[in-house]
């Protein structure tokens, strides 16, 4: 029977919960998932990402007490460490902002959201009162232990900012294991009037990992969301980012860079809904797609009736570097208001031959020249990272040559 392993895992979880309302609501969510199952490739939103094989997988819930190698903490930030989906208080620099929001209703009828809600373990619950400013960025680190082979973890997170509040949050997914694992994360964001949130999502999972994340954000009057997504891992990854500009004057920026490792599959889906006038949205995604990788980008901008004076821009650029690579891009516009300015563009191409020749004529070897140009391509996105320690961390992950002398050269070319 399909989804059998999931049912077994759920019964195990339910037995531990006893006779509680939480168990009943989880059971309802699980039954919804069991009825709908994983999304199929026939659904337009899942056209390029096939989850069919997940139905047959035998994932179990991880045992307690998993241990993982904790990387060095980023400077000037608070670290929250999760190992195998469980909060590791001892390794974290703060105990705050952790909560179980499993019983809250899910956003819509998606089978994945139901799966996540049925199994959800505690995650980030950041709630700031009006005017409150989070002094240091919160750095959430999701790791996997060596003993957690063939397991799945599901977490729900929430960020609620009161009016005028502001915060920076970094989500880093870095399970390092060769065996198959599944993780789902959902994050709901509510920004009050004039609130401001910076969100960074870093993914450097290794091959074998399946990661499905989903962000739903709702922006109130004059609030700002700035999100940056970086994918540098080798797993099978799908991200959904849904932003609704619900009141006038909101601003949303969603930028991303994907540099998938060989055999990786990275699918970024964004949906920006302008539901009120005077909204501004910017989206810029870039991809460097090499050997045996598959990158998908699907971005939708919807301007609802009445959302006049909307200003929206969406740009996607891809470098396709190998015969055995594939890029699928789909920037959609759905516009129901007339006084708007909406543009989108998508390109697929290669490194500029003339720029390569220029660098080589100045004595830079081909490999360095190529790396330089790739870095220059990536900088367009990385420049949106304002938190310096994180910027260094990302450059370390990407491993492009970093030399001030060469930086000047890059600028000369640009």
């Amino acid at each position, binding site marked *: 029977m399909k989804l059998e392993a999931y049912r077994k895992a759920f019964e195990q979880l339910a037995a531990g919960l006893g006779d509680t309302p939480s168990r009943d609501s989880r059971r309802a969510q699980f039954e919804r998932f069991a009825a709908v199952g994983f999304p199929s490739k026939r659904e337009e939103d899942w056209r390029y990402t096939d989850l069919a094989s997940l139905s047959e997988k035998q994932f179990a819930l991880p045992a307690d007490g998993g241990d993982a190698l904790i990387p060095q903490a980023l400077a000037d930030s608070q670290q929250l460490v999760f190992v195998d989906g469980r909060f590791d208080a001892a390794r974290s620099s703060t105990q705050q902002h952790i909560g179980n929001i499993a019983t809250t209703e899910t956003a819509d009828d998606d089978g994945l959201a139901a799966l996540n809600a049925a199994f959800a373990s505690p995650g980030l619950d950041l709630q700031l009162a009006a005017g409150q400013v989070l002094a240091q960025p919160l750095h959430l680190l999701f790791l996997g232990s060596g003993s957690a082979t063939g397991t799945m973890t599901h977490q729900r997170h929430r960020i609620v900012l009161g009016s005028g509040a502001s915060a920076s949050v970094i989500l880093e997914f870095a399970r390092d294991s060769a065996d198959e694992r599944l993780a789902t994360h959902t994050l709901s964001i509510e920004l009050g009037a004039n609130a401001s949130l910076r969100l960074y999502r870093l993914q450097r999972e290794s091959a074998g990992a399946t990661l499905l994340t989903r962000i739903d954000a709702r922006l109130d009057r004059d609030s700002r969301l700035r999100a940056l997504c970086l994918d540098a891992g080798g797993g099978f990854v799908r991200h959904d980012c849904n932003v609704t500009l619900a009141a006038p004057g909101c601003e949303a920026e969603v930028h991303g860079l994907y540099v998938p490792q060989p055999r990786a599959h990275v699918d970024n889906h964004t949906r920006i809904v302008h539901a009120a006038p005077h909204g501004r949205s910017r989206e810029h995604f870039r991809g460097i797609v090499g050997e045996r990788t598959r990158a998908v980008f699907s971005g939708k901008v919807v301007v609802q009736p009445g959302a006049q004076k909307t200003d929206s821009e969406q740009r996607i650029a891809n470098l396709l570097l190998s015969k055995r690579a594939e890029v699928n891009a789909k920037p959609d516009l*759905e516009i129901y208001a*007339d006084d708007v300015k*909406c543009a*989108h563009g998508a390109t697929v191409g290669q490194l500029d031959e003339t720029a390569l020749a220029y660098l080589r004529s100045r004595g830079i070897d081909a490999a360095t020249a190529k790396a330089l140009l790739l870095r220059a391509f990536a900088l367009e996105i990385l420049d949106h990272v304002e938190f310096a320690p994180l910027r260094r961390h990302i450059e370390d992950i990407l491993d492009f040559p970093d030399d001030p002398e060469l930086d000047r050269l890059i600028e000369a070319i640009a």
Partner: protein
Amino acid sequence: MAANLSDVRQLVRNQKYSAGFITDIEAEKVPPGLSEDVIRLISAKKLEPEWLLEFRLKAYRRWLTMTEPKWAHVQFPPIDYQSISYYSQPKSHLDGPKSLDEVDPKLLETYKKLGIPLKEQEMLAGVQNVAVDVVFDSVSVATTFKKKLAEAGVIFCPLSEAVRERPDLVQKYLGSVVPFADNFYAALNTAVFTEGSFVYIPKGVRCPMELSTYFRINERNTGQFERTLIIAEEGAYVSYLEGCTAPQRDENQLHAAVVELVALDDAQIKYSTVQNWYPGDEEGRGGIYNFVTKRGDCRGARSKISWTQVETGSAITWKYPSCILRGDDSVGEFYSVALTNHRQQADTGTKMIHVGKNTKSTIVSKGISAGRGQQSYRGLVRVLEGADNARNYTQCDSLLIGDQCGAHTFPYTEVRNPSARLEHEATTSKIAEDQLYYCRARGISEEEAVSMIVNGFCKEVFKELPMEFAVEAQKLLQVSLEGAVG
């Protein structure tokens, strides 16, 4: 300005779909409904060979297992395929006219009203040099300039005639570009298609004149299922135009056509459409459902297929003229202007499938949405693994007129070759206030100014149309846009 606007409104109220009249002509129609018997009947009426009947039945059986596609961004009540009559022909046509002189004068009058000259001498008097095949409901009523074309070796005739005269060619190419089970409407068309044009340009021949087919739906409760097949042999060139109208009626009528183009080595096919089916009234009553499958196959090296379309009619348009760039160095082009006004809906675009090396494609799509019109561009550019140095340029712009309309863009790009270069760009905006103001300050009325700006917006596409069509397209656009401002 207020007075001016009310003048415009007055004008609009009086504005009629000029092709909306009905020709009162006796017709022979098969009763509504679709079954194998109906298909056998159609086939028998057309005196078709056994293989064609088998082809139809195969498609029909597959169609029964298929479901209507739901992905398009359009809404309409379910179509009852059993209430449509799948065959209608003017009674006077039963014996078949031998020449133009024998054609029912009522029919000639119909086309005269539509501005389609059927008498060859008339055409010679004018500037036009166009051979016309005229399809009225399910049958072709006349094809002009046959003799002149025959001298050049060009075959231009109704498809049913081609089935009798050149079964070898028809059998070889029919369904080779759009397979019988390609999609729901193509399968339906394959089962019941009744007429259409057949064009064959032999090796090395440049067709001496523009070829044109004029489609007209007249009868109530009928659908038109035409099928066009164009074959350009090595080094051949042809430019083909297609026009369509239908009477003004409160009910919806279905038009599900299939067009197949085959271009061999070094051949060029230029296919232009001015689609002006009845669009329905302001409240969205009536109008044609235009669900069409058009595909060109650049089979030979250095071949070129170019689609140009001006879509102003139809209640709903669902149409994606595509190119399969199979031959090395082949070129595909798609130029489109689509206009939706009142409650019209259009989901249109193209597919460019790059298979061969050094293949190039260009897509220019201009969408204009006014009133409560909903308009979508949906395009696919796919570069397969072997398509080295494929190149695509896509530009789709939308113009919004009024705050009740919608303009949508759904571009798909799928690339599997690292030497491919693709660019896609799209913008959506309303008519610039400063441009309007400039025109108004110079004494140009708002209506005229809008029409002028819209024409400028579409210029890139219009310049691809043959001269006579470009003029007609501009006029059409103007008429279709009336009432959009104010």
